[in-house]
């Protein structure tokens, strides 16, 4: 129950920051457009089977959602910033339920944002997310879950905003890059091997495959990777909170 109160609280606070919301929606659309335009010739020469706009329409969308981990860490640290931590500390509630609520709330916000970007990109930039839109949306939701887990667990584990954000600042772009966010991953070689460790790689493959339209072969892998990583991260966070009591 307390968890739900906090989830609602998180979504409500997020809705009250229209600037952040706009940034998270307009930013990706803009970047997709720029990358799509800039790489048109290269993609045409490369014979990828899809054009640059289509490729970045997927990979930069998943990048945007993954960057939502910063929103999730903010969800934890905002109580310290607004000094409301003391009020939560004296209230008859557990830190665990409060943190889980922040996690749930940021997941919902990120999933909604991701779907909003997807809808806008398909309308404004005519990007194709495949016939089975609900599957693409499901992948975005799974990714949002992972992003929320990453932000919340780092926040809980480090307990200090600058440390947590520092780690995310290194980790998020790296995973986006090796996941194929900014460039196509070659069929073989080092980057190809490395790419399998990025959850974004699997989500991107699955979504591109849905758009092709392909048989949907990566969907299971993408969902499994996201959910497993997210479960692992949240378990760590919960253990940490448990031990702190």
């Amino acid at each position: 129950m307390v968890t739900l109160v906090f989830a609602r609280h998180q979504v409500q606070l997020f809705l009250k920051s229209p600037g952040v919301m706009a940034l998270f929606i307009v930013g990706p659309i803009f970047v997709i457009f720029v990358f799509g335009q800039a790489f048109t010739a290269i993609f045409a020469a490369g014979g990828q089977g899809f054009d640059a706009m289509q490729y970045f329409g997927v990979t930069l969308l998943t990048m945007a959602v993954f960057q939502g981990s910063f929103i999730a860490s903010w969800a934890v640290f905002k109580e310290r910033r607004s000094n409301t931590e003391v009020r939560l500390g004296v209230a008859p509630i557990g830190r665990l339920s409060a943190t889980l609520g922040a996690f749930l709330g940021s997941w919902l916000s990120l999933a909604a944002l991701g779907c909003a970007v997807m809808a806008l990109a398909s309308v404004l930039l005519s990007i194709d997310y495949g016939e089975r839109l609900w599957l693409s949306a499901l992948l975005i939701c799974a990714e949002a879950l992972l992003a929320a887990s990453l932000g919340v667990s780092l926040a809980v584990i480090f307990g200090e905003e600058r440390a947590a954000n520092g780690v995310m600042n290194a980790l998020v772009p790296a995973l986006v890059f090796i996941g194929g966010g900014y460039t196509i991953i070659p069929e073989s070689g080092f980057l190809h091997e490395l790419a399998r460790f990025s959850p974004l790689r699997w989500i991107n493959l699955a979504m591109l495959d849905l758009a092709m339209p392909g048989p949907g072969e990566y969907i299971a892998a993408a969902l499994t990777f996201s959910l497993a990583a997210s479960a692992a991260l949240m378990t760590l966070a919960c253990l940490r909170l448990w031990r702190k009591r």
Partner: protein
Amino acid sequence: MIEIRNASKSFGPTMAVDNVSLTIRDGELFGLLGPNGAGKSTLIRMITGLLAQDGGSVSFFDGPAGTAGPLDAKAVKRMIGLVPQDLAFYQNYSAIENVKFFASLYGLRGKALTEAAEAALAFAGLSDTGKKPAKAFSGGMKRRLNIACGIAHDPRVVILDEPTVGIDPQSRNHILRSVEELRRRGRTIIYTTHYMEEAENLCTEIAIMDKGKIIAQGSQERLKLLIKDSSGVTFTLKRPDPVDLGAFKRIRGVTTAKLDELRLCVTSEVGATNLNELTAEVNRQGLIVTDIETDSPSLETVFLSLTGRSLRD
């Protein structure tokens, strides 16, 4: 009832709270008076369970101690309402959204929640703030919202940490009247301040804290008695004439005699009734006096006489 026994807390070399023992009875308006850095907020954090003490204990009882065992942590949290020294609410939320959120942490839902929040806002004089976000409030309104957020769940024990710092007299009066109203409603109140006047006008029991220690404690009357034993007389002189302080010190009952430019201050033991001898000595030395003051003790003088410093430097 709240019983604090030998509570201590240090931050590195600083003893923020040094072996403090206090008893706060139900329905009391307990003032914790002390200058900046005395350790008031640290003690409050220990009472509310936000900070673990290095040593000693803080226990809450349902009724007087001894009738039943101390309450468990959860029960204690339910009965406490904290108004922290630093503003603690969400700047983007309106007043009612803030109050409702914090009250909902105490299990209030639906209609009961709305009613409680509205009552708390009315109590704090913030009923007509509508959807305006808290960040657009004036300083005094923010202080009052800070209070509303701490009391909406109708706690039995209300702890206010310097709730009137840095605000206009109007909001300040409102807050002081609110605190009195809480007391009338039978709440137990712990009120920290470094304003003497507030403690004097408001509190039924007062503890004076300095450098982590409780240096005096009791009802106002008792505290003032503490220094009645050194009632003072101040003669304001017309000219900076030389004064034979030794002669004053030899007078029956006199404890100190000091000359501070034109002010000759003589303190005596309580009940010395030596004003006649003092004036006689003034005349004997040919001093010209323009004014005589005898201090009726205030908490300010209590603090001064106990620490040798004034409360606000």
